[in-house]
């Protein structure tokens, strides 16, 4: 039962003088992992922001069948003067769900953030912030994940963990679109190569 999560058809986008996409069409269905690849400046981040609806294309249709989306950009989406726990609580509030303390503790344990539960975000290292944003993503129970360079500033153990999580998520009917420069592609991922026109 692989339902469609998002379709993009005939996308055209030209920020500034140089054209990024012209007639790009992509469809993301449940269970799918899509990895965007391409050199610096080819438009991966732009495409992800368009998918999320944070940026408007010049023309073309973007249809989102699941809402809300989980988006992980270059900014972590964590309030820096709140603690880790308070940020997690906020995510579940946004989703209208009750905050499940036990699950949150479990996830923090998995990401080795247990000791940081009551630290302010601004006191965390970059990698720890990124880990925390993954915990938020998991707490949010989003169907479709849009991730911009999710492995950057994670250590090897963290990267491994995230790879497994993505695989697990897509195995359970979720989907993920990932922009990455990592040398080893994700398991089961469909590669989309973007180039500079």
């Amino acid at each position, binding site marked *: 039962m692989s339902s469609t999560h998002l379709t993009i058809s005939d996308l055209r986008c030209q*920020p500034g003088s140089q054209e990024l996409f012209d007639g790009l069409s992509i469809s993301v269905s449940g269970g799918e992992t899509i990895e965007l690849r391409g050199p610096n400046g080819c438009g991966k981040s732009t495409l992800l*922001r368009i998918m*999320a*609806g*944070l*940026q*408007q294309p010049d023309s073309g249709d973007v249809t989102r069948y699941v*809402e*809300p*989306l989980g*988006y992980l*950009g270059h*900014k*972590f*989406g*964590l*309030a*820096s*003067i*709140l603690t880790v726990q*308070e940020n997690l*609580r*906020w*995510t579940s*509030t*946004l*989703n*209208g769900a009750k905050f499940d303390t036990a699950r949150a503790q479990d996830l923090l344990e998995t990401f080795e953030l247990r000791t940081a539960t009551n630290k302010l*975000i601004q006191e965390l290292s970059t990698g720890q912030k990124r880990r925390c944003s993954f915990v*938020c993503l998991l707490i949010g129970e989003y169907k479709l994940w849009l991730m911009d360079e999710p492995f950057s500033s994670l250590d090897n153990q963290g990267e491994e963990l995230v790879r497994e999580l993505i695989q697990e998520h897509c195995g359970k009917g979720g989907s993920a679109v990932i922009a990455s420069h990592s040398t080893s592609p994700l398991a089961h991922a469909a590669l989309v190569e973007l180039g500079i026109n």
Partner: protein
Amino acid sequence: MRYWALYRRELLIEFRSGVESLIPIIFFLLVVGTFVFTLRSFTAGDNRVIVSVIWITTLFTSLLSLDKLFKRDHADGTLAVAVLHSDAITATVVTKLVAHWSVTGIPITVLGPAVGLLAGMHIDHASMLGFTLLIGTPTITMLGALVTALLVGLGRGGELLTVLVLPLYIPILLFGISVCHLHIDSASYTSELFWCFALLTGSTTAIPLALGPILKLSQDS
């Protein structure tokens, strides 16, 4: 429930470091003080000047704190997350506005008349000042938030905000001050008060709904 939880988050951010929540209040006192002090030789005993000064300072206090209404959230990316939850965005925005009003509007509504009394205003006139501030401050918050939302992410300071929003503030400023002045002069002020209410109703109903889409649009680089 969700509203309450979101409101709590805003207050948490506001009050995280104790004294900080007093800053708008101290700011208000400081600015009123500076004004009254510098203008003291001309205003002695004229309550109408005090009213004007308090109203103008209220505008500035509100402006300066509005500047950061969405800035922090934009900088750390939480605004983008909020915007993507389109069913919760109105709740987010409303709680933000209410929280802002709670930490600036309410204290000013209380402090304004208190300062007036200290400066020798009659209790009747001071209460009227408080009443107009009570209807005026939400309007100020709403209009300011609207312009702030348009400017999110442009990295501009309070200056641009002021230049854009001050013209919008003129009506509520004029009506608010007029009501008090007319009351002091024992003249009729019903139509001015009516306009104050009209502005209040208009801004509090329309603006919270408009803010969600505006903020989403503002994400676009």
